[in-house]
């Protein structure tokens, strides 16, 4: 047990910070926000070609660097801190994880090397309901001989309108809950898929909606055992939750840092705002949330590594992911809100960046389940089952 970054991990973190401080500036973020694509293609190419982040935790056998979840999380923290607009999260933290967890060897060999060189990808599973559990899988499939016919629509799909590779969750008609769910992987340009940008309040992350009209897939598109994929999908989502919690941690830290910087400059009633005790105490509370969130996220990152090494089971992963996501969601939202408050009037102008973090905090809080969703999930483990945590 050693619960701190190794020197190599520190270096990865520092390089990410330095790169993003230069490239993901306020101006760059606002430029990316104004496009339908939602990110700057040139920056994305630099990330892929120079930094190779997208292949970080993909095994070398599939064209990646073969590093671990801790390295990934260290990078994600900095991306969240600088509000980096990119298809990284959807491609790596959803789609690549889906392939790693549930893909056949053929699928891994086909798609992971593509992602590792910068092809974009995403995971679509939620329908209109707006929930995040198995019941939110609304798209249906019908088996017809050796092929599958998919129909229905997805909503709230990260980069859903632009990703080049799609992992799709669908359920056998007439099933509900955890039963009958399958995963498929397909190129996004497969006929039968219509896609659209879903403009959102947080402009730093793109969501799309997908409409499937008689999308016909062969059995080589099926990931895992037909109709048995909820357990794997839940693991994929938990890995995605850890990743989004890491971004939230970075955002949360930046809210604290930028607020302390602003109020240390600003004078009111003849004193630096930072000298008022009520302001100091609010900042102290923000720091508590940042550091606790950091502990939860780093722990979950270690569990992510254990999961890939098969030294942690799905329950351990679920617990760590729900803890990290629940705490970091509330911590980030709290810090962004207090950040606005302590900025005073300028906090609610579009000119200052704190409002961008506030919006990011809300969108990520909702995404993959808000805190009460995860608390109820933990309550089920603690109160309704005999599993020891």
């Amino acid at each position, binding site marked *: 047990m050693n619960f701190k970054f190794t020197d190599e991990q520190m270096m990865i973190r520092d390089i990410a910070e330095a790169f993003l401080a230069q490239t993901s500036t306020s101006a760059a973020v606002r430029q990316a926000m104004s496009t339908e694509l939602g990110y700057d293609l040139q920056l994305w190419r630099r990330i892929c070609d120079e930094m190779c982040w997208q292949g970080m935790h993909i095994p070398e056998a599939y064209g990646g660097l073969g590093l671990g979840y801790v390295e990934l999380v260290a990078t994600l923290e900095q991306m969240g801190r600088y509000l980096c607009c990119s298809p990284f999260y959807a491609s790596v933290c959803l789609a690549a994880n889906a392939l790693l967890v549930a893909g056949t060897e053929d699928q891994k060999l086909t798609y992971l090397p593509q992602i590792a060189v910068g092809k974009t990808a995403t995971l679509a599973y939620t329908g209109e309901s707006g929930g995040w559990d198995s019941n939110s899988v609304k798209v249906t499939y019908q088996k017809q001989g050796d092929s599958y016919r998919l129909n229905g629509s997805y909503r709230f799909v990260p980069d859903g309108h632009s990703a080049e590779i799609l992992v799709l969750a669908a359920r056998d008609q007439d099933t509900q809950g955890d039963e009958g769910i399958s995963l498929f992987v397909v190129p996004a340009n497969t006929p039968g898929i219509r896609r659209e940008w879903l403009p959102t*309040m947080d402009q730093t992350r793109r969501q799309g909606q997908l409409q499937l009209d008689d999308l016909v897939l062969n059995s080589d598109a099926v990931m895992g055992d037909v109709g048995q994929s909820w357990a794997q999908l839940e693991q994929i989502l938990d890995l995605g939750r850890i990743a989004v919690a890491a971004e939230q941690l970075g955002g949360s830290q930046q809210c604290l840092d930028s607020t302390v910087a602003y109020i240390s400059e600003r004078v009111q009633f003849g004193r630096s705002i930072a000298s008022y005790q009520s302001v100091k105490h609010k900042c102290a509370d923000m720091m508590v949330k940042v550091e606790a969130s950091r502990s939860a996220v780093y722990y979950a990152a270690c569990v992510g590594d254990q999961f890939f090494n098969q030294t942690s089971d799905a329950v351990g992963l679920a617990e760590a992911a729900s803890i990290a996501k629940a705490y970091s969601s509330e911590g980030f939202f709290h810090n962004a*809100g207090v950040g606005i408050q302590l900025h005073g009037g300028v906090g609610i102008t579009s000119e200052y960046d704190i409002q961008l973090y506030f919006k990011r905090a*809300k969108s990520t809080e909702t995404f993959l389940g808000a805190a009460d969703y995860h608390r109820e999930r933990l309550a089920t483990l603690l109160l309704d089952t005999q599993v020891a945590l």
Partner: protein
Amino acid sequence: MKLDFSPEDELFREEIASWLAANLCGKFDSIRGRGGPGDQHMFIDERKAWEQKLYQGGWTCIGWAPEYGGRGATIEQQVIFNEEYARAQGPGRAGHIGETLVGPTLIAFGDQEQKDRYLPEILRGEAFWCQGYSEPGAGSDLANVKTSAKFDDTNQQWQINGQKVWTSLARESDYCFVIARTDSKSVGHRGLGFFLVPIDQPGVTVRPIEQLTGTSEFNEVFFDDAHCSIDDIVGEPGDGWKVAMGLLGFERGVSTLGQQMLFQNELDEIIVLAKANGSAQNPQIRQRIAEAHIGLRIMRFNSMRVLSSKETDGSLQKEAMIYKLYWSSWHRNLGKLAMDVMGSESEVLEDGPYQLNRLQSMYLFSRADTIYGGTNQIQRNLIAERALGMPKEPRG
């Protein structure tokens, strides 16, 4: 202590209710429930026309004395008016600064000529006002006002120079009342004057501030040799602080009931949404909706206490001092609740970027509520120092 209204008051209730039913319709249908905080700059033409409609029915400035064209409505009647206005989903009052702030201020501190000039056009819904309090660098600190007013002997008028900020409705207004320093050597609360300044003049520039909502309810207002006439100072030079403080007292009166009606509309919309999308079955959402209901009801009871006490005692009471802190915190929570009731859909902009729906806009703008007009931190200082007699914060 009693809640029941007299038979006369119940007649009054029927009168306003049936007038609203007969008049808040047709071309005014579109502004039902609109024009609240964060939405004040919307539908401004329709809402100005609505003010004139109200005037025709005798429903503007009902609390003013009859000599100024009001009904001299009792507190009870004003409460009833606001209740029925809320029930009918009346729009946010475009004329509220004139009716509830400028009017009472002029009645209390203005001279006869000022009353004659300004009150009738406020009453008729023809002249609209905005307020010039905050300045960049002064923020909540009124005593730190830098805007200057010099008397120009040649032209016999006041010359105003400086900048105000966070002025809502500035672009939609005809006049701005401005706190400015008449004695350039003065500091703090002394040497201030309270001026009535026309907006439409070369010396006044209004620059919208783009907010996190993408819209611009607030503005910066620049005064570069702007002027107002020798008669447009309320009280004497040096009286500005006294007048401004009096005005703040009016602000926390009946006008709060107008605000609450908009809050009620918002809460009702959230409840309808929760029932429709099933989140009304979520136990946490149920608790929070009930809490919002409790909070809004108590806000109303607080106002009733303030209003009932006002009749005998003009000083600002404890229940009045908590008002800003209370409502702004409540409203901020309501914004979050609205989004959580909407769930994943809360993120989606149905009409494209960057078109927020009413609840999304309310949610984002509610973060301003705890800042403008004295941040929550300032409010807590005031409560601790003035109501509880605790030691003052040292100035730097």
